[in-house]
């Protein structure tokens, strides 16, 4: 029993990482209706920016805010520069450009900051919480994730611009007719997703260490979490991310064949199983199309 609780708590701790990532994925999915395969690399790049700022002696929280702001701007720039011209291109072209961005960010980060593994500081200090089950950083990470979620909820529910973004995503044509600048709403969505990705990256980096390839597998878990929760629901993304963390830990402990090397396939199995049984995820809306 004690092992079970221990595994669940540590599952929640790793799940918080995935929840962060899943949240960023869902955000961009809301804005552009594509899964951004470069999301992880963008977050990694932002984290490197933060690391550079810290190395230059900027205090942590200032560096945090600066990185989030820079990533926000960066996301908008990418949308305006690259994706605006692809607005009406087929989905396949979008996916190829995501792959291109993946390659660009990965190689640029390696070029600028090299491939050495770098430690990244945690703002929450060290020590042990809950009788050593969780580190303060992991607890802080969960709090930050929930905070981001709450902010997003308030933004989309209670601000004019949040409403405009929802309208632009739900029905671009009608939104344009009532005077919403749909193109800029998409750009804003990119900026926000990039900023959330930056937060996720800075929260994840103290756990997995900073290097250009740190996000590849985390992105996949993030996808699993987002799909599990439903790609249309930020709350679902957080719950899904946490659930994937717990499932992964429990499967690693209790199913004998599943060693550490099979943890990743477990996440994939979750994706496929959920998609087959409930294609819209746990909390996602089912999209009904008129024919």
């Amino acid at each position, binding site marked *: 029993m004690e092992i079970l609780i221990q595994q669940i708590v540590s599952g929640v701790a790793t799940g918080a990482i995935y929840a962060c990532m899943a949240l960023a994925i869902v955000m961009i999915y809301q804005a552009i*209706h*594509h*899964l951004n*395969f470069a999301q992880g690399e963008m977050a990694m790049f932002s984290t490197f920016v933060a690391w550079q700022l810290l190395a230059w002696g900027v205090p942590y929280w200032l560096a945090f805010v600066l990185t989030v702001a820079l990533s926000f701007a960066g996301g908008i720039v990418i949308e305006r520069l*690259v994706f605006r*011209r*692809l607005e009406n*291109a*087929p*989905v*396949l*072209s979008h*996916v*190829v*450009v995501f*792959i*291109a*961005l*993946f*390659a*660009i960010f*990965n*190689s*640029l980060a*390696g*070029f600028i900051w090299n491939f050495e593994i770098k430690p990244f500081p945690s703002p929450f200090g060290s020590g042990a919480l809950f009788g050593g089950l969780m580190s303060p950083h992991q607890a802080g990470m969960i709090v930050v994730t929930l905070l981001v979620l709450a902010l997003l909820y308030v933004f989309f529910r209670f601000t004019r611009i949040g409403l405009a973004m929802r309208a632009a995503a739900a029905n671009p044509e009608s939104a344009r007719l009532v005077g919403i600048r749909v193109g800029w709403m998409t750009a804003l969505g990119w900026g926000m997703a990039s900023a959330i990705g930056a937060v996720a990256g800075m929260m994840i980096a103290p756990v997995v260490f900073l290097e250009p390839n740190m996000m590849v*597998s985390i992105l*996949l878990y993030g*996808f*699993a979490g987002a*799909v599990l929760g439903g790609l249309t629901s930020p709350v679902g993304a957080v719950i899904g991310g946490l659930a994937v963390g717990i499932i992964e830990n429990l499967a690693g402990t209790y199913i004998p*064949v599943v060693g550490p*090397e*099979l943890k*990743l*396939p477990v*996440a*994939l199995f979750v*994706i*496929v199983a959920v*998609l*087959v049984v409930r*294609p819209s995820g746990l909390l996602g809306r089912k999209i009904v199309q008129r*024919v």
Partner: protein
Amino acid sequence: MSVREESSAITAAGKPVSRFGARNWAGIVVVLVLAALPLFLANFTIFQLTMMLIYAIAILGLNLLTGINGQFSLGHGAFYAIGAYTAAILMEDAGLAYGWTLPAAGIVCFLSGFLFGLPALRLEGIYLALATFGLAVAMPQFLKLSVIEPWTGGVQGIVITKPDAPFGLPLSQDQWLYYFTLVVGLLLYWFAVNLVSSRSGRALMAIRDNPLAARAMGVNNALYKSLAFGVSAAFTGIAGALGAIVVQFVAPDSFTFFLSVALFVGLVVGGVGWLPGALVGGAFVVFVPNVAEHFNKALAGAVYGVILILLIYLMPTGAGGLVRKVADFIGRRMKSRPDR
């Protein structure tokens, strides 16, 4: 399209219509060039060209699935891996001749593709892309499983001996494998073209264009979609088997999801739904990373990415779209001349 065909039939009303058009001549020229190339090149370049053909076969399979049937796959590297391992295990453990491993790999991959296609039936668009992406990421982990290590050799992989040219042909090993691959590729291309223009091919395209209408016309959507997955996987698996024979080595880490991504990129660059585009895609997969590395070794990935984005801007519908545009342009110029 149909309008153009009608008008050409009218202009040629008096004469018998020649069915052997410019398209076939272009095909023959390409095949002749491909057949002549290895006579003038160094062994390493021949090896690269062989890999180009192999990737072209894999992309051809992917094109049948995505271009003709409209199903996404970001995970065809997994079927490539299954084909490669089937060939390697049959050659090293069962002592099968390399030629026979290709049909075996095809059958094994057809079955695995068909079986994967069944749950994939419920998925569409981006969800299918995600599920197949998962398959690609998981594949190296599966191959490393200790349960099947006696056959797969675990992380070490399997080393294969390279076959010699048969019947005492005066060809080097690389040249022979090139021609072997070329013949297999042409056979598969012939099969693919016939499949697409057959009744089944029309059914596959009908499902792509409007699944509901296809069903109303009596097409068994579920069966055809799974079959498309199976056939596509079989093509890719045969390519994988050829790849294993040519590279003489299989290991889990040769089949990471980057392979799947490369195949997918090749498909889009070549042109989705245009079968000859596979050759362009294969060339892109093999040669562009080299070009990128040539520019700047440290920034190779970034250069590759920029080339990719530029290509998507310049030819949003891939090489296929470009060829069609050029052909249309020339066709219009020819037609506007009064003396023709």
